[in-house]
């Protein structure tokens, strides 16, 4: 029996949990390959035109896997904290996939995750495992416990300031390296964006590496402490009700208030609903905090030049601003276009 795990959406956040869970239950898993043009095209073919890119990517990965495996794992994420939900598209994801991709109907295994306290390792939500995969209650509970422990290790490592790529590497090798990177970065950017946009190298065009090449330190929301994220939202009149969007919004405010962060880049996918709201809120507030804020919208196109140009321009602007803070009267015209700024 083989279970397919699509490498898309929350895969990047929960992979250690689900991988360990299946391993402990002695079920063979196949993770789809990283997104390629072919997978993207398959996704476009099987989904409605207007839907957001991550959903198309997900459809593509399912279509890629469906013939190779006996079951496809698509958890129905409803809620992981009180009064908060996932985006409606996540909640209807298994239904949507069932009716759009041929041959997948009988293969879907979708535990319904609807908890109030972030602890997704409760056996009662995994009833489908017992029904469809023939897992026994005791085994399931034991496996869930181990999986949750592994996932916590992974999250803790990430919170130490490592990107998910590094953390996932650590999980795969079963050894989290204690990093001692030298800090030769000049500026720090808060990178806002969902894990499935930023860490999908095809969708984000590997923006983290591009930023690092420009000697920019990158901070993302999953490196911050969860309490700090929720705390920074307490000033809002009404908090939005999407879990991961709230994490981003909270991270946004943390970045605004953190002196070490020089600017914020918001990566959003074409047609993302929650982002249209929180992006606008952050944009309106950037004036108040006097911090540069840039939105980059990604979609299924794969031309990289526009991205390179925009982040370079953004980084240059911040570098100049930092130099100007040296003292004296600030005047844009006084700075040579060629001199010291160019050789940093």
């Amino acid at each position, binding site marked *: 029996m083989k279970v397919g795990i699509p490498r898309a959406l929350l895969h990047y956040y929960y992979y250690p949990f689900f991988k360990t869970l299946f391993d402990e239950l002695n079920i063979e898993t196949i993770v789809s390959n990283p997104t390629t043009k072919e997978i993207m095209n398959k996704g476009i073919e099987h*989904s*409605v035109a*207007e*839907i957001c890119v991550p959903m198309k990517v997900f459809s593509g990965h399912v279509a890629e896997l469906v013939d190779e495996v006996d079951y496809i794992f698509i958890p*129905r994420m*409803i809620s992981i904290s009180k*009064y*908060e*939900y*996932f*985006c*409606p*598209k996540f*909640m*209807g994801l*298994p*239904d*949507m996939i069932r*009716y*759009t991709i041929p041959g997948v109907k009988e293969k879907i295994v979708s535990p*319904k995750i609807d908890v109030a306290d972030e602890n997704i390792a409760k056996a009662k939500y995994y009833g489908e495992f017992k029904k469809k995969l023939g897992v026994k209650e005791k085994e399931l509970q034991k496996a869930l416990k181990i999986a949750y422990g592994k996932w916590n290790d992974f999250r803790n490592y990430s919170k130490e300031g490592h990107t998910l790529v590094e953390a996932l590497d650590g999980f795969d090798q079963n050894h989290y390296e204690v990093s001692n990177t030298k800090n030769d970065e000049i500026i720090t950017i808060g990178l806002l964006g969902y894990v499935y946009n930023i860490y999908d190298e095809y969708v984000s065009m590997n923006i983290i590496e591009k930023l690092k090449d420009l000697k920019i330190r990158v901070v993302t929301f999953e490196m911050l402490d969860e309490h700090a994220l929720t705390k920074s939202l307490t000033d*809002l*009149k*009404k908090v*939005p*009700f*999407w879990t991961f969007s709230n994490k981003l919004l909270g991270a946004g405010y943390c970045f605004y208030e953190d002196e070490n962060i020089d600017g914020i880049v918001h990566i959003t996918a*074409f*047609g*993302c*609903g*929650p*982002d*249209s*709201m929180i*992006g*606008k*809120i952050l944009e*309106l507030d950037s004036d108040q905090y006097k911090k540069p804020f840039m939105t980059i919208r990604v979609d299924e196109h794969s031309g990289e030049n526009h991205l390179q140009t925009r982040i370079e321009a953004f980084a240059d602007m911040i570098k100049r601003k930092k130099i100007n803070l040296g003292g004296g009267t600030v005047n844009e015209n006084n700075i040579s276009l060629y001199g010291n700024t160019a050789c940093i």
Partner: protein
Amino acid sequence: MKITFPYMGTPLVYKKLVEMLGHEPITPNKPTQRIIEQGVKNSPEFACFPMKVIMGSYIDALERGAEVILSSGGNGPCRAGFYGQMHEKILNSLGYNPKFIILDSIHRDFKGFIKNFKMITQNVSLCQLYSIFKFLHKMSSDLDQLEMQLQTKRAYEINRVECNKVWEKIQSIFDKTYIKKDLIKAKEKCQILIDDINIRKIPENEKIRIGIVGEIYAVMESSINMKMEELLGSFGCEVRRAHYLSHWIEDNVVPKIFSKSKDGEICKKGQKYIEVAIGGHAQQTIGHIVDYKEQGFDGIVHLMPFACLPELVSQSIIPKMSNEIGIPVLTIALDEQMGVANNTTRIEAFIDIIRNSKEKKYRAS
């Protein structure tokens, strides 16, 4: 207080509510191209279309002197529940400072709800409030009953746009009623108006019935759905909508034990295709399609605002599902593009297909 509110369908009932609570209503204008453009300009690009339109009508009403904006909230996961906060933030950044009263779900924020509720009902006693509510509930269901008759008759009217004229007249008659006695008289008067409309006689097998389903704002507000009901009427189709104001009141305001709401039943019909409520009206959309099929409707027009999150899920499911249960569905996504020729052609072709297949079936039998 000078209170304004969103424009959705006929504003009569909301206007009456504000008036009877002792405030001055600033009735929003029916969204025009100018209002919509204002809204689009000042909203996030990927915000859903209803939010943009409502934004435009708020700006319009604020320019005409409104001080307070009254609207309903929500607790997600659909974006509509967050409109109020978004509108407030953007309007503030534009230099308007209206007071927002957003009635959120009583379960989420009990204190806030009571506080807001008291603010708008400070001029009336609880007893009066009950009678106002009862009166408006009756009024909205009367209006909906009359509108449904027009939706049927419009397909067969001999003088074009007569039904529209009658509907305008009905609204102005109801506008003048304030007590129950007048309401009964007004209804009788309107019934006569409707009965006087001349109609063609069409044999039963040639009648076409279309159900309009989808997101509530797109379905109920004719200025953003390119007058879908009138268009279908002009092609000789009887029309029913999935959303009427009186149904919304039954679903959301009337306490559950007294409510005649069919919402639960409809959702149950949708559960086969969308297992859990995913926000907005996605499950109801699917449920209504199944329900209309069972009622013997001939086709469905599915309206959704561009990038509406829950309706995208239902849109994905619809093609296979309509095949499965055997009813044609046409999905139309709406945005600020106001050209009607494209949609007129699509609807015309859709109706032609339905008419032909119906005729074929009839001949075969």
